[in-house]
């Protein structure tokens, strides 16, 4: 069994040989963190190991006082009896897979990843290993992402339509990763300024400082009171939907950029006018391709619709298991509605 290298614990995935946790949910002595999203990077631990490309974001999330050890891509470092390295996962800026070598075995924990091109971060690197721990947020064959070119064209058409109708276009998306990726992709087709919700300002700034080319942006709060936003593109986190902050836009058209928008029922339930299918997670073909690329003997599947992926991998000749079958008490994974 592989449980000698990794064990699920209430705090998170634990490596006894190296005495560290990967993406712990609670404060621990030594944490290895894959990326800066709030459900992976939590403050309060004694020491953090992260990929250097994500250090600026980690500082934002973990606080200026946290002790952070940054490592270049593929750089080997030692924790206890294990040797570790970070490899790009293509999820968001600085997002990493963790390669752990110890007790004669190589385990790769993917963190969140995608295979589609993203101008804001290094592309996913397939890392050969014995055991691959993969995410499966979108682990059903109905999830196949359209090309970004098509989606960008759809978003721009929608903004044009809004301009013709004289209403603002408010695009909701996650503030870290999705917003910057869209700003970078849109920059290939237009140079119009985008208005940002306050929650996105700092993070966009961090991306700019990391050298990511994006559309010019301005804070909504910087605009004069009573400004007419008709025909303008505004980006905001989903939590702003239906809040008093929206009042300034009057009868705005709303859109949501997320992988969940693939399904009509999810689109209608959320009540946005438009859904744009954009995800920073692997789609079904992306998951299968990654499993093949890393040539692991054994696959463990974390959150999401993992059951279908596990069964399909078994049907196609892989040794696959849900991560929770390792035993121990893993914290309840986030609900499938939250990942994106």
């Amino acid at each position, binding site marked *: 069994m592989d449980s000698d290298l990794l064990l699920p614990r209430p705090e998170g995935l634990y490596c006894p040989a190296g005495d560290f946790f990967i993406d712990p949910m609670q404060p621990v002595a030594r944490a290895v963190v894959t990326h800066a999203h709030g459900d992976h990077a939590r403050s309060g631990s004694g020491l953090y190991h992260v990929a250097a490309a994500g250090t600026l974001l980690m500082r934002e999330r973990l606080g200026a006082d946290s002790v952070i050890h940054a490592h270049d891509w593929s750089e080997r470092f030692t924790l206890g009896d294990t040797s570790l390295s970070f490899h790009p996962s293509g999820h968001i800026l600085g997002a990493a897979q963790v390669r752990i070598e110890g007790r004669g075995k190589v385990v790769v924990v993917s963190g969140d990843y995608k295979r589609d091109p993203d101008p804001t971060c290094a592309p996913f690197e397939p890392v050969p290993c014995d055991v691959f721990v993969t995410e499966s947020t979108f682990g*059903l*064959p*109905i*999830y*196949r992402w359209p090309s970004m070119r*098509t989606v960008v064209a759809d978003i721009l058409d929608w903004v044009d339509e809004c301009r013709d109708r004289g209403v603002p276009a408010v695009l909701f998306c996650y503030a870290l990763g999705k917003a910057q990726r869209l700003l970078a992709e849109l920059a290939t087709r237009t140079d119009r300024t985008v208005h940002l919700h306050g929650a996105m300002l700092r993070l966009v700034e961090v991306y700019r400082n990391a050298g990511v080319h994006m559309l010019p942006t301005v804070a909504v709060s910087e605009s004069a009171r009573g400004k007419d936003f008709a025909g303008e593109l505004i980006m905001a986190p989903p939590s702003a939907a239906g809040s008093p902050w929206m009042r300034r836009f009057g009868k705005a058209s709303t859109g949501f950029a997320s992988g969940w928008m*693939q*399904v*009509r*029922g*999810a689109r*209608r*339930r959320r*009540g946005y*006018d*438009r859904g744009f299918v954009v995800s920073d997670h692997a789609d079904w073909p992306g998951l299968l391709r990654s499993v093949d690329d890393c040539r692991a003997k054994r696959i463990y599947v974390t959150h999401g*619709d993992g*059951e*279908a992926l596990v*069964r*399909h991998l078994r*049907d196609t000749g892989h040794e696959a298991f849900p991560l929770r079958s390792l035993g121990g008490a893993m914290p*309840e994974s986030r*609900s499938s*509605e939250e990942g994106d």
Partner: protein
Amino acid sequence: MRRFAALFEALDRTSSTSAKRDAMAAYFADAPAVDAAWAVYVLGGGKLKRTATSTELRLALAAETGYADWLIDDSYQHVGDLAETIALMLPGTEDGGDDVPLHVWMEARLPSLARLEPSERIELLREWWRPLPREQVFLVNKLLTGSLRVGVSQRLVVQALAQWADLPTDLIAHRLSGTWKPTADAFLALAGPERADEHAGERPYPFFLASPLEQDIDVLGSVGDWLAEWKWDGIRAQLMRRADGALLWSRGEERLDGRFPEIELAALNLPDGCVLDGEILAWTLDEAHPLPFAALQKRIGKLKPGPKLLADTPVRLMTYDLLELDGQDLRERPLRERRAMLAALVEGHGPTLALSPAVDASTWEALTAVRRESRERRTEGLMLKRLESPYRVGRKRGDWWKWKVDPYTVDAVLLYAQPGHGRRSGLFTDYTFGVWEGDTLVPVAKAYSGLDDAEIGRLDRWIRAHTIDRFGPVRSVEPTHVFELAFEAIQASGRHKAGVAVRFPRILRWRTDLGIRDADKLDDLRRLASG
């Protein structure tokens, strides 16, 4: 089809009714009449013949993609819609692809499926799918499985047609009523100038629908301005007497011919050129009250009822309005006059064509007291109709109110859940509830509605975390949560495990203040059923 697919997307994207109406009106003006006719039919909820079974669709999808049956099933459970699941799982073509006109799909392609062997049907489906863009795969699947719901009401389609034709909505509604056949001529005729003999044919008049009375009764003003009748629990129907016989239309505007021969026979004694509105009820001669709705259900299902059924479960039409007499449209005349003419017309026709009696009361208090007899009279409450009102089209508030008695309620425990469809796909929203019999909880009702979105989300997460067992899409959960359910009627039933069947169950509230031991007992329900 590309144009129709674009219309569908425009309708699907917006929740604004005016935007939907504009999109349809623009389509009607733009599309070839023969395609527009089919769009009217399909969007207005017209019946579609099912030309392939869902099993055949699944087989075709499995053959085309190589995916295992269980994976197709899992995906379907997640999406909640087979037509969409297929569209999402097939490789699909990028822009372009086939553009076969809507009417060719409806008149030639889909009907041709019916003449094939299942295996040939599956092959043909796969051939059709391959060159289609994803949104058209979805639409074609919807059309061939016989259902396409777009979130537009028939009324909105009528409004869009009225906007396009620049005619009153009531006229369009009448022209579309009955069995409207989607042809280019029929579509263009919708926009034609109004004729004097517009109503003389076989098309039923659009039904006037009552609204539930939610405010206090005294806001209606003087009790003397209102006609009160029992609210019958039967089938709303329009009886038309024409020169060559009688026609019976349901409120869903389907012909009921042949199902209720006693009513059609009695109608032959009416003069040519009259139209009556009323309720079909199962009612034996020696009874003071109608039979329960379940008895009537036996008659609805039978196209040619046999002598025994006719004898055991006779029906009558309880008439309450007169829309036409001597070929004259009476709908603009006040109810007071229509009712007097109706009374004179059905006088002496025996119980099969009866007049729904007025419930007399000189004060609202007296009427409120009479209303308490509703259940023992096997009615759902009272109808209140303004005596000066015309017979309107559709659901218009103000003149006709249904004043139902309060529903029965029961506290029951959530036992099973399964994912919903459409807007609720992927969420556990279809629940089964049970009550106590001794130490076991026995399922008694399924309910889908009544919780708000926040409660649905909370319950969905709880169900996922507390599943005990799975039976296909159905999950059994730890008995924990108690809900107050409302229902309209309860009857003894041999077909249900619990021995009782409830009518129109829905969730009133989540009783977080109750534990499962506080839920009701099956005996309580049995008592209601026998009482």
